[in-house]
């Protein structure tokens, strides 16, 4: 099997992830053995899930371009399904949800053929105009705004937002001799976003005192946020030369912006969950909760990052 995307730089990054996972597994193992009085079940479960996610993601992204697109489309499907299962939906409007799902293959088709103009307006304009027409044909007025608003909001975050990850793969100019392959950019944004989540969590756990948004997410502190920003900027300095064509200023700015946007994406979904009165969005990923709990930050970082690189490097 020929793995085209596997350049030497990407290889180094993958070895880095592997080392990071081994170190965290070892640390958790030692902590579990040396402090039997404490309960590390959840942490161990989380690390185990990280291994799973890293493995699946690495293979899905590296093996082949089309597999990557199918994998990301499936990720959008899982996120949208989780969202639509959580929110209260109207019985008469079942068919609207069916059309919302149908937007996923269509959106990914635009990405597959590299039609940027259609990719960027299909959900914000055409789905936005089409769904109400379908509603009018059903003719159930009760709950019109609720269905319309909640379904389109979900489509924007879970399909439009997340599909930006896939568009990184087909940016014009990312193939060929250019070091910064689309695969490299996807790895960069996903690794930074996920590590930022973990870093903010850890800084918050160890130093956290002053709450940022006490009513939305009481666990988020200024210490966690600032520590996360610093950590992510540091990580950006390490990864950018391997995975991106970034100059120093873009590296630092992207690290800062990913950290901040990741935070906002996270609390955005927290607010939704609080509104619905639930803690975890699901049980799909042991120790983490549902798919939404894992991709919440990406719904903000992916679109911002795509437009940043597109404007400054592939415009």
């Amino acid at each position, binding site marked *: 099997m020929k793995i085209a995307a596997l350049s030497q730089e990407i290889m180094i990054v993958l070895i880095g992830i592997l080392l990071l996972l081994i170190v965290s597994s070892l640390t958790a193992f030692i902590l579990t053995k040396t402090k039997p009085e404490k309960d590390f079940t959840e942490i161990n479960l989380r690390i185990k899930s990280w291994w799973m996610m890293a493995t699946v993601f690495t293979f899905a992204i590296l093996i082949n371009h089309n597999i990557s697109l199918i994998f990301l489309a499936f990720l959008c*499907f899982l996120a949208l399904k989780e969202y*639509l*299962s959580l929110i209260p939906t*109207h*019985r008469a409007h*079942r*068919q609207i949800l*069916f059309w919302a799902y149908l937007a996923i293959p269509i959106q990914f088709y635009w990405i597959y053929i590299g039609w940027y103009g259609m990719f960027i307006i299909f959900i914000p304009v055409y789905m936005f105009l089409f769904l109400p027409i379908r509603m009018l044909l059903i003719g159930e007025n009760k709950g019109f705004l609720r269905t319309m608003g909640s379904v389109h909001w979900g489509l924007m975050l879970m399909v439009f937002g997340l599909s930006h990850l896939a568009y990184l793969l087909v940016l014009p100019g990312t193939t060929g001799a250019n070091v910064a392959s689309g695969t490299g950019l996807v790895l960069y944004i996903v690794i930074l976003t996920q590590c930022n989540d973990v870093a903010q969590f850890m800084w918050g756990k160890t130093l956290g005192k002053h709450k940022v948004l006490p009513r939305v997410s009481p666990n988020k502190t200024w210490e966690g946020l600032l520590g996360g920003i610093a950590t992510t900027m540091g990580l950006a300095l390490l990864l950018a030369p391997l995975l991106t064509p970034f100059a120093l200023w873009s590296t630092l700015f992207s690290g800062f912006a990913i950290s901040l946007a990741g935070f906002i994406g996270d609390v955005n979904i927290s607010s939704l969950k609080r509104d619905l009165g639930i803690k975890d969005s*699901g*049980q799909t990923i042991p120790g983490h909760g549902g798919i939404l709990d894992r991709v919440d930050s990406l719904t903000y970082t992916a679109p911002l990052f795509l437009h940043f690189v597109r404007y400054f490097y592939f415009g």
Partner: protein
Amino acid sequence: MKIVRRLFFTIIIRPFILIILGLNVRRPENLPTEGPAILVANHNSHLDTLVLMTLFKGKKIHGIRPVAAADYFLKNKWLAWFSLHIMHIIPLNRRPKRRDESLFQGVYDALDQNEIVILFPEGSRGEPEKVSRLKSGIYYLLRERPDVPVYPVFMHGLGKSLPKGEALFVPFFCDVFVGESFAWHSDKKTFMTTVETQMEELANEGGFTAWE
């Protein structure tokens, strides 16, 4: 036929239920590992039986027997073949003319062969995402096999995915709550109350709002 059934569930039904639909199962460890046992569940969709059967992996599928309405599932040759051989149903006459001693014979045979029988005490799929009044057939059925344990299971979401009378399937995550098993009781009212409260508790666990 066993091979066809096994393949049908492994290649088509399991991937469909787990990937397109998606299950959140609470306490799968409460499920019976061997028969004889009776699984009672709420009934809102044709998907109910498929989800319950998906909870049992591999070879076990041969020992799972859903009780299904003869008038519906045997109504034509093709459906009857599929129902009897692939779904492996125990057909039940929903409207026996008068006292019929052999009404539950199929269920007794299955239980005597240590199989796990799936039963929907509501009798019909009814309104989506609503539990209808439970029928007392299960009491009379168990009177002849009083030692068989009853396992309550509540499913949420399937009535939204494929409600009665709709042909369009829409994916929703399905929550499955498995309760603690309980035994038959000689007093009909006590036993039926137990079944009802068990199902109600499982239904309330998810805190789901009614589907308007």
